[in-house]
């Protein structure tokens, strides 16, 4: 098992290397180089800022030296200071990661507890009314623009019914609240963003679990289980489900970039001070160092998500470990 983890870690090296290369290329994508872009686009890019930028990206040096410098900063996670407020990019990102992680973990949890039973049930009862309704829901889920649904929900629950707050993560008077009130306040603020960011994922995952389950129930060992006279519920729960759920673990890992990306939309709609909103605002204000920092850190988070998924896959499926 530890050998597997080691090999898996080693396979991340070329990926990290590639990420550094692509992010480096993006810096140089701008016509005339990033300094020119800043000089033209951002009012904040004074002569001094331009000098800083030149030093930050080492633009006066030859390309391979620039890349080496970029690699060095990458390893130290040093992305310079923001154009907008002069704060260190790493600090800005660190401040905002917890709320984004909280929302994403909550919606991942929601996706798992809703999508898997939904998919498994519709596979077990293939072609039933339930299966057809789930399929309909899946198609609607794939096709609904999440930000539009967010607007409609905001209008319904926030404006029309006045039940839920439509922006921020806490009320203004949060300081005077008891612990219980604070938890409730937070829950009221988070319920719409979490539900909405889970929405698309629920559609996708119920589909995956359905096809994974359909695959498994056709296997010989399920026929064997039935043949030896087990109850249907036992066949499904102890024999089929365990095998059907294994590939889903890996797919959950692959969902991480989508979830983090989705946070750009929800955080800007609901004014949640997370990494997604920061990414959006930095793009709008062309805050170059910040957006590069977010790109790199979100890519690393994705790699970690995949790593965790793969390791847990190897954990539940002995075939993976033994093969290696």
């Amino acid at each position: 098992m530890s050998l597997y983890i080691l090999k898996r870690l080693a396979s991340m090296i070329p990926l990290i290397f590639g990420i550094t290369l692509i992010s480096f290329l993006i810096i140089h994508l701008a016509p005339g180089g990033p300094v020119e872009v800043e000089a033209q686009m951002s009012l904040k890019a004074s002569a001094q800022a331009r000098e800083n930028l030149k030093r930050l990206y080492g633009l006066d040096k030859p390309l391979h030296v620039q890349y080496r410098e970029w690699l060095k900063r990458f390893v130290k996670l040093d992305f310079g200071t923001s154009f907008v407020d002069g704060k260190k990019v790493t600090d800005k990102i660190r401040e905002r990661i917890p709320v984004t992680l909280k929302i994403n973990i909550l919606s991942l949890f929601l996706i798992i507890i809703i999508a898997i039973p939904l998919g498994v049930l519709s596979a077990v009862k293939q072609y039933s009314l339930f299966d057809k309704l789930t399929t309909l829901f899946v198609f609607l889920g794939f096709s609904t623009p999440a930000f539009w649904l967010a607007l409609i929900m905001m209008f319904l629950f926030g404006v029309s019914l006045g039940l839920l707050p439509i922006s921020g993560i806490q009320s203004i008077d949060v300081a005077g609240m008891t612990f219980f009130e604070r938890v409730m306040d937070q829950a009221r603020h988070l319920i719409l963003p979490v539900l909405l960011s889970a929405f698309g994922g629920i559609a996708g995952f119920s589909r995956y679990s359905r096809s994974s389950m359909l695959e498994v129930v056709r296997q010989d060992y399920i026929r064997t289980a039935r043949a030896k006279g087990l109850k249907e519920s036992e066949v499904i729960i102890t024999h089929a489900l365990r095998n059907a759920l294994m590939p889903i673990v890996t797919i959950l890992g692959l969902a991480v970039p989508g979830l983090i990306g989705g946070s750009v939309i929800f955080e800007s709609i609901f004014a949640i001070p997370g990494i997604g909103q920061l990414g959006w605002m930095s793009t709008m204000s062309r805050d170059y160092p910040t957006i590069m920092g977010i790109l790199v850190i979100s890519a690393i988070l994705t790699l970690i998500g995949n790593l965790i998924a793969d390791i847990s896959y190897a954990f539940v499926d002995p075939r993976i470990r033994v093969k290696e």
Partner: protein
Amino acid sequence: MIRIVWRRFRENPLSVTGLIIILILATVALFAPLIAPYGPATINVYNVLSPPDSAHPFGTDDLGRDVLSRVIWGSRISLSVGFIAIGIAITIGTVIGAVAGFYGGIVDAVLMRFVDIMLSIPTFFLMLAAIAVLEPSINIIMIVIGLTGWMDVARLVRAEFLTLKERDFVLAARAIGANDSRIIFRHIIPNALSPVFVAATFGIAGAILTESAFSFLGLGVQPPQASWGNILTSGKDYITVAWWLSLFPGFAILITVLSYNLVGEGLRDSLDPRLWQNEK
């Protein structure tokens, strides 16, 4: 073969409905200047934010522009972004997948590693970074969606190539002296296109969603040009007073994307020869 596919496609009423809607939408987009009751940018300061009525069935926006006309004009933008972005993605994906699958070995390893790298960077942030550098516009959003959306196609095409290149017709082509590029483009690619068509149909749906999200965030199609996404931006600003600004353009996106997804599903089923049983 097309007749068999069509016959199987026809059996699925939802996919046929999707196809009909797509055709209607394409017609609307093509004849937008004739169909739209008002100009997409005709401002009327005496009639701002008026709710839907007989003169303006979808109401008017904060500048008094007719929302129905803007939604109609917006369909041009959304459809062309969808098609062009996916055209770019399909081209890149097919070439990379074909080369990787055909040559195998080190070429395959390097190209597929590149695919892995692209997949490990969250697409949304990659697009944000590229847009921050290049200044948002309709052309940039098309290119960026295309350049970040080819990886699945590459994988599909590679998988097709891995099995197809071992088949006898490839051997026959080689025997009569065809060179690599002729074998790839004239012999293997035409046989590998079915899954690409399916992926393209789903891809258009995805590209329309992505474009609308970016335009909504102010990072895609720029006003005053109307796109479904940027009409929704003002929908958000006036969410408390003008629900019609949010409802109709979003509904247009939903119907369009749903139609492409339904057609994609129908195509997938009817293009799969394993499901063709007893039809000849």
